[in-house]
């Protein structure tokens, strides 16, 4: 039995034979009913678009102010980088490092590797797309910009009675980054990306 034709249920570990599906169909486990895989077609085009848009928006998120507040005639504004740096300045090195990893390094890695994977697939680069996808697989769990977005809103709710708040360009870009990340991680999914990689190189796998 060719292992490329076998799919194992993530819930009950029952092996199934992979059957070709129509576009938009889903295969379910015969024992526990969990979703095994979906037919996505040429997902690399969508991943490519998401990667390009995500990278541009993340650049905007990093460079522009996130929030500006006015309190009693005083004005204060932050960018994401300044926020992390101020934790370090206050003596919270570990927390600052953690924030740097999950809010800047891993999100960049997630978007860059998704982009590279799709670009390499479109151009026919088997090895580059594989390495990009390995990096994506290892990094996507650690990107937490979605949690940060909710945290920004919670922080604003805590101070909106005392200060007037202005959402900067980086905030709106961050919304887009989060949408892209949700699309890549939950909409497409890492396993579908691997399946597509394997499908394109089906006869060429060593």
């Amino acid at each position, binding site marked *: 039995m060719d*292992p490329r034709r076998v799919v194992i249920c993530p819930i009950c570990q029952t092996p199934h034979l992979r059957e070709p599906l129509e576009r938009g169909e889903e295969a379910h486990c015969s024992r526990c009913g969990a979703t095994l895989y979906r037919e996505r077609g040429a997902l690399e085009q969508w991943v490519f678009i998401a990667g390009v848009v995500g990278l541009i928006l993340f650049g905007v998120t990093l460079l522009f102010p996130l929030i500006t507040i006015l309190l009693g005639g005083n004005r204060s504004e932050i960018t994401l980088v300044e926020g992390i740096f101020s934790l370090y300045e206050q003596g919270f090195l570990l*927390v600052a490092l953690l924030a740097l990893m999950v809010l800047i390094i891993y999100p960049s890695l997630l978007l860059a590797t998704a982009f590279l994977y799709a670009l390499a697939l479109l151009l026919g680069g088997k090895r580059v797309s594989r390495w990009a996808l390995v990096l994506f697989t290892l990094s996507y*769990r650690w990107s937490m910009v979605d949690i940060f977005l909710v945290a920004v809103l*919670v922080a604003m709710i*805590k*101070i909106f009675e005392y200060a007037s708040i202005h959402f900067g360009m980086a905030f709106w870009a961050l919304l887009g980054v989060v949408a892209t990340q949700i699309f890549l991680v939950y909409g497409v999914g890492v396993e579908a990306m691997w399946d597509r990689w394997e499908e394109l190189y089906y006869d060429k796998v060593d």
Partner: protein
Amino acid sequence: MTKWIRCRHCGAANRAPRTICRRCGLDIEIDPKGSLFKATLLLCAAIIFYIPANLYPVLQSASFGSVKGSTILEGVVELWKMGDYPVAIIIFVASILVPLLKFAILAYLILSIFLGRCHKIEEKVRLYYLIEITGPWSLIDIFVVLVLAALVHFNSISIIAGPGATSFGIMVFLTIIAAHAVDERILGVTCE
């Protein structure tokens, strides 16, 4: 019949007894003892850090020279008193309830692997995926502190992070890797 191993990273089916995934090249070895040991150790460490994380303030506000700190629970109570019920509930669930639930679920999963219990394995695997996905959300309070501490530094009032923040961050980080150390594939390994 061939025995198959599912890769936890890319989902590929591998013929046993491989130790490296044929597709993504990452580790696919099933090591029940090592996995239990790592998960138990990390869980204990996380529970230890949970204590200072909740006893010490994560956020301090300095206003006209006097510093007032508030722990996570005090923050929730304050939000509730101000009438911000949805936010109070979000913070309470994400920062207090989710870590506790995670401890309980992880301990339950570790114990049932250890004792080789065979009932409701699918539910246990679903619980496992649930804590994998919800775990990082406990960091929300740390990010709130990050935003407020960077933003609010005026003469009249300024907000700074509190000593509990480091313990809290470490605690959440440890629960994330503890959850990942539990291998969902070994929940029913001794069964059938």
